[in-house]
């Protein structure tokens, strides 16, 4: 697969989904360093022996959509949220990831100012990270926030969003299967009438 990634065949490639690819460390680093993936805007990695840390140093990648499922995130999570390859991300999906360490720092340092959709369903978020997320002054374009099944998303998260002037473009938030209560959701709906709260 690395031969393909580094070949002229992918010069015009805009979207690449990779599932169950047994990358070696060297192969994955070579993939991320490919000089021919400059047109790639969507990268989806499912159950690949790869680590998102490889994306941090990628020089030619300019992604707009990144989907990581059963792919290791870097120990320094902030590096992913400040990586040049990710600076133009519109959609980021980290479903089922363990972000129980470093999520607060990553959200505070995030340079993902173009983000329109953030999907964190069934993700283990560091306690307090969700509150930082919903009060971030940088997420001015975020329209859709998926927090379904996140155990640390609570009424405190919803109340933080209700009291925040940030996330002005937010249209819908998903909070099912979290400790959030119906009362908390009602308070948020009252504070933000245009927001759909599920």
């Amino acid at each position, binding site marked *: 697969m690395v031969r393909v990634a580094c070949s002229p065949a992918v010069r015009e490639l805009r979207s690449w989904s990779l599932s169950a*690819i047994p990358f070696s460390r060297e192969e994955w680093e070579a993939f991320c360093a490919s000089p021919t993936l400059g047109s790639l805007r969507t990268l989806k990695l499912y159950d690949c022996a790869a680590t998102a840390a490889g994306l941090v140093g990628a020089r030619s990648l300019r992604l707009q959509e990144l989907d990581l499922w059963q792919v290791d995130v870097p120990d320094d999570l902030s590096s992913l949220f400040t990586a040049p390859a990710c600076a133009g991300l519109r959609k980021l999906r980290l479903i089922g990831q363990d972000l129980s360490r470093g999520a607060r720092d990553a959200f505070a340092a995030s340079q993902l100012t173009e983000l329109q959709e953030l999907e964190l369903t069934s993700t283990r978020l560091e306690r307090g990270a969700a509150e930082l997320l919903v009060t971030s002054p940088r997420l001015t374009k975020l329209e859709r926030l998926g927090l379904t099944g996140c155990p640390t998303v609570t009424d405190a998260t919803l109340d933080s969003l209700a009291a925040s002037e940030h996330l002005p473009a937010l249209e819908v938030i998903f909070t099912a299967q979290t400790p959030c209560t119906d009362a908390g959701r009602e308070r948020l709906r009252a504070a933000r009438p245009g927001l759909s709260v599920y």
Partner: protein
Amino acid sequence: MVAVLEAFPRLKALTLDALNPGAAGAAALAARVPGLEELSTWRSG
């Protein structure tokens, strides 16, 4: 794989399932489908 690619030179999207294209496949992709925009690879080495 080369024969298939030759049959569809204007291919825009391609899925490879459990197929290792290797060097020959990469060369064939570049030569036969220069405008490829979407690629899905599953269980492919």
